[in-house]
């Protein structure tokens, strides 16, 4: 089993963190993982993306060219990464910030209003968690409960009070995706 994921958006949407949590959760579940961020000049307020590989074998390349799933949090990311999804793979689109439709018909497109759903969970900042929930509904490579455990670890005591809200965001994201599967 090797799962290759691209998570993309713009700075501040938490796409790098979302990718890290996936990698972390994979590691916690005993898989081999890698996380590789874009670190070009675009990291200053522009687009941000990362490649995550979760595998039962040694991770050969941390660079994802053919993604099993691409998560695109804004329009620029859709335009950049739609082509990188493997035929039959998933493209998860944050429709709140993407006003165009994907052009390919050989991939599965999941539309998630991540910003609105996050707001209903308690904060727009949890849009990255909504999208993680949606991803897990599609792929289930790592368990939701592992993701929560990793969140607790990363957030620490100081931000512990935010866990229930994030948990809710993940749950709502999952439901939104399941409705389309």
């Amino acid at each position: 089993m090797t799962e290759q994921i691209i998570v993309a958006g713009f700075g501040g949407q938490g796409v790098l963190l979302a990718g890290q949590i996936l990698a972390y959760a994979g590691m916690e579940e005993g898989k081999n993982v890698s996380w590789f961020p874009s670190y070009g000049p675009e990291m200053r307020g522009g687009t941000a993306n990362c490649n995550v590989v979760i595998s039962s074998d040694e991770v050969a390349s941390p660079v994802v060219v053919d993604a099993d799933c691409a998560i695109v949090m804004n329009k620029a990311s859709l335009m950049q990464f739609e082509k990188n999804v493997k035929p039959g793979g998933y493209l998860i689109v944050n429709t709140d910030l993407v006003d165009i439709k994907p052009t390919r018909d050989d991939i599965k497109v999941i539309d998630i209003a991540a910003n609105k759903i996050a707001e209903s969970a308690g904060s727009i900042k949890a849009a990255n968690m909504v999208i993680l929930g949606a991803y897990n509904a599609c792929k289930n490579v790592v368990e939701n409960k592992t993701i929560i455990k990793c969140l607790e670890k990363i957030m620490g005591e100081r931000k512990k009070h935010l866990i229930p809200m994030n948990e809710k965001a993940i749950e709502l994201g999952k439901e939104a995706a399941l409705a389309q599967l």
Partner: protein
Amino acid sequence: MAKELMKGNEAIAEAAVKAGCKAFFGYPITPQNQIPEYMSRRMPQIGGAFVQAESEVAAINMVYGAAGAGARVMTSSSSPGISLKQEGISYIACAELPCVIVNIVRSGPGLGGILPSQGDYFQATRGGGHGDYRLIVLAPASVQEAADLVMDGFDLADKYRIPVMVLGDGMIGQMMEPVEFQERPAVELPEKDWAATGWDGKSRDRAIVNSLYIEADVMSEVNKKLKAKYDEIEKNEVRVQNFMTDDADYVIVAFGTIARIAKNAVLKAREQGIKVGLVRPITLWPFPADAVDKISRQVKGMLVVEMNQGQMLEDVRLASEGRVPVAFYGTTGGIIPAPDDIVAELVKMKEGK
């Protein structure tokens, strides 16, 4: 100890701390900034020294001072900064001071770009600065290996009194992977009785840390002594990893992160029925010439893959002595080769194109 998910740069820094590094001197340059940033937090916690120097030139000379005073010391930079350090590295090599220098290579020449590259292979393996010297050059392919090689690097540096370079690239510096810092058996290392620590006039000779030898015969003796040391290192310290080479008709030779991608290509090519293996030099100097020589007697062709325009290629050609065709596939500018591109090169090679 439990596995942690760490950025390569941070794992390199923590590995140095675990190896007993007591001083770090650096200067900001992308994509290695997490190393000095980490050290600026970590060194005060362990009673070590951290200085953000005014330049890479100053930083490497601080390394010279701290190493000359007997401390385990490290510096890190990226390509343009490493060029600036070359003066100091040459002095360190001649004065036989142990230290670890990390180069998280970016693309060049000139200011170049900040994306991954292997364009500093020549500079690293040929000494880099002026004069007749070598560094031990270690090329990690994973974050775990980067951490391990940094720790080994300190021991090698002390054992041979030589600067050790860990040659990574932007990919290994920036990526996160699980790392485990294992307890390591204590290595017996020579006493640093040559270090300048203050002289009481009796317990040892007066320490003079120096690289100036005006008289021809004296300088020549120093050169011979260095050469003897380099010979010893070539004999003892070569590291190389072979992957699926036993039945291989072709091999890829690649180092560092590119070897991972090449490994992927090996598996893909085998799915297409091409029996390919991978030879991955871990020490770039000393270069695993024997391993390359040996495999060149078994295979029909070799493909060198690098993120440059063909540098290790020369060492592979030297070691294989024209026995088989040695082809090359390289990417530059920060473009990372894709496994399929490498497979396509293998197909071409097999078809004799």
